[in-house]
């Protein structure tokens, strides 16, 4: 420090110097609020949920018995409730796979071939749907998929009505119209979650250095070989990240199964029904634990398979 000893630095600079010399204190000050938020509202809520799931509803009084036990889980594992779980998990898995298949080529084009300008336009195209209300878009899809909707009309114009009818006649996934079938629900899920798959895959692809692709080609790898051996393995973390979004969002979604489809229960609707009309908070909590367990298992398996080795 230059200057004479009598001119003391301003209080603000003294605070700055004080903090600079105590990095731990600075860290505590910086992280206290976000950590508190995380602990109370995220972890606290989760722990409370987990605890609730071990309580049970007294069927006679309609009161919650605050005693640890596995009765609620016994109730969860009944055939009717497991149907809900299976239905939701299968839908989430199929939606995730479809999103990945649709997202990859677009993300690949954006990351590797699109000019700066085109890439910007595509980013916007991917993101703009997220700016509008989710509820509005789901109801819009209900109209699009309805018996009198544009898709039915389009099949009629092309003279392909029998094809649509044949698709809707498929047992289980068909229905009276697209908006009352699992096929329709699947389409809407894919539409709604697709951006959450495109963005992480795109980010992963952009991180693959061009020189790796050149190196593979240089060593004799045809484009097909290079894709399977170099590009895909290095983008798996991005696909996993995207599928975590699409999978968990589908597992927990309540609105789409309520608006589209044949009103059969999905986990989200089951949770809503149990904690609302039935007043069975423990069972609702147990239903909520299911997606968490599934996601946990999924991540552990992905890690075991080496999906994150390239990170």
């Amino acid at each position: 420090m230059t200057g004479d000893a009598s001119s003391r630095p301003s209080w603000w600079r003294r605070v700055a110097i004080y903090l600079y010399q105590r990095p731990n204190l600075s860290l505590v000050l910086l992280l206290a609020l976000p950590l508190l938020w995380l602990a109370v509202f995220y972890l606290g809520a989760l722990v409370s949920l987990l605890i609730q799931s071990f309580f049970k509803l007294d069927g006679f009084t309609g009161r919650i018995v605050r005693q640890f036990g596995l009765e609620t889980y016994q109730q969860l594992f009944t055939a009717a409730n497991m149907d809900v779980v299976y239905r939701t998990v299968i839908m989430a898995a199929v939606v995730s796979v479809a999103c990945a298949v649709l997202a990859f080529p677009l993300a690949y084009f954006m990351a590797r071939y699109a000019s700066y300008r085109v890439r910007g336009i595509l980013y916007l195209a991917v993101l703009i749907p997220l700016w509008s209300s989710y509820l509005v878009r789901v109801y819009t899809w209900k109209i699009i998929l309805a018996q009198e909707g544009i898709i039915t009309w389009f099949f009629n114009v092309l003279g392909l009505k029998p094809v649509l009818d044949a698709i809707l006649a498929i047992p289980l996934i068909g229905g009276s119209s697209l908006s009352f079938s699992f096929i329709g629900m699947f389409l809407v899920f894919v539409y709604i979650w697709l951006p959450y798959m495109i963005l992480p895959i795109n980010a992963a692809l952009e991180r693959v250095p061009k020189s790796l692709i050149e190196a593979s080609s240089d060593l004799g790898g045809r484009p097909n070989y290079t894709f399977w051996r170099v590009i895909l393995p290095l983008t798996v973390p991005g696909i996993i990240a995207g599928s975590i979004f699409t999978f968990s969002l589908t597992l927990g979604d309540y609105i789409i199964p309520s608006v589209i489809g044949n009103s059969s229960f999905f986990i989200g609707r089951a949770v809503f029904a149990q904690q609302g009309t039935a007043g069975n908070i423990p069972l609702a909590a147990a239903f909520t634990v299911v997606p968490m367990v599934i996601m946990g298992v999924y991540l552990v398996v992905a890690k075991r398979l080496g999906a994150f080795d390239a990170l």
Partner: protein
Amino acid sequence: MAAHSGRSIAVKMTDVCRHFGDVKAVDHLDLEIYDGEFFSLLGPSGSGKTTCLRLIAGFEHATSGSIELHGVEMVKWAPRRIGFVTVGQRLVSVPPYERDVNTVFQDYALFPHMSVGDNVAYGLMIQKVPKAERQRRVSEVLDLVRLPGYESRKPAQLSGGQRQRVALARALVNRPRVLLLDEPLGALDLKLRQQMQIELKAIQQQVGITFVFVTHDQEEALTMSDRLAVFNRGRIEQIGVPAEIYERPTTGFVAGFVGTTNLISGALAQRINGSDQAVSIRPEKIHMVALDAAVEPGWKAVMGSVRDVIYLGMHTRYLVELEGGGDLTVVQQNLETSSIDVHASRGNRVKLTWDTTSIRVLQGQTV
């Protein structure tokens, strides 16, 4: 060069251009690289040397011209069609995976998700070499680059020098006829770089493959190459053996880029060489002698005074202001410990002499 007549040509580039819009990365390039030689492409960044290498590898496509690898044309005319209608012609290149060359990349480009062994075996896998032979060749080549037993390591666990060796092994294991090296030592520190220079040269002599080596380091190019080409602005200024490039630069650019030199033009050139054509004389060819020393026949002498002295350990660089205008840089070896007093010579009147045959007359621009 006469010494090369009869040797087969590994790479032959004829009138090759690679233009990116207005930027002429490679402009009307002619180049012949002989089988088995260590050939360097030397030049500053943006001079087109890396583009030239990438044209040979097949990563870049020539705008025009011909590139032959061992007599096989890599750039061909193909009909340009819209639907079934031929509307003209376009140049197409043989893709990299069809060429018998391998590249060591500047950033090594090791596959991060594969072990060292899988990286090195990558090319052999594609060629469907049986597993036993594959393992044998991988371990052989890892011995060659002095990384024995490193098969199961991941690239992330290796140091920069080790990654560089793996990249070299991954290319060499395929026994390509030409190995392309894109500034492979650029990321290494000085000591490691010097060590790798020696190893790389030894490996090249051991395997006998043609090495095409891109570098911006003139010392590296001079010490390692059998021959080198000096690049400037997308063109080759001069091709020759290292001593030829250093001792007989034909252009001002080569004289200035390879080593340091005195580039002299105009009135001073007239006084020194009797013509105003630009000339070059290396600082170490100029002798600083006593004022009364005799001048040998065939030597030229001028008087001047020392304006600046830079002590460089092994030698000292003097900037001498000549009587009658102009100045020359002179390098003298520090042969005696009295050189501790070199700074005292500032301002001294000195006599500079040189053999007139060490003056090189230059063509073209003098930078």
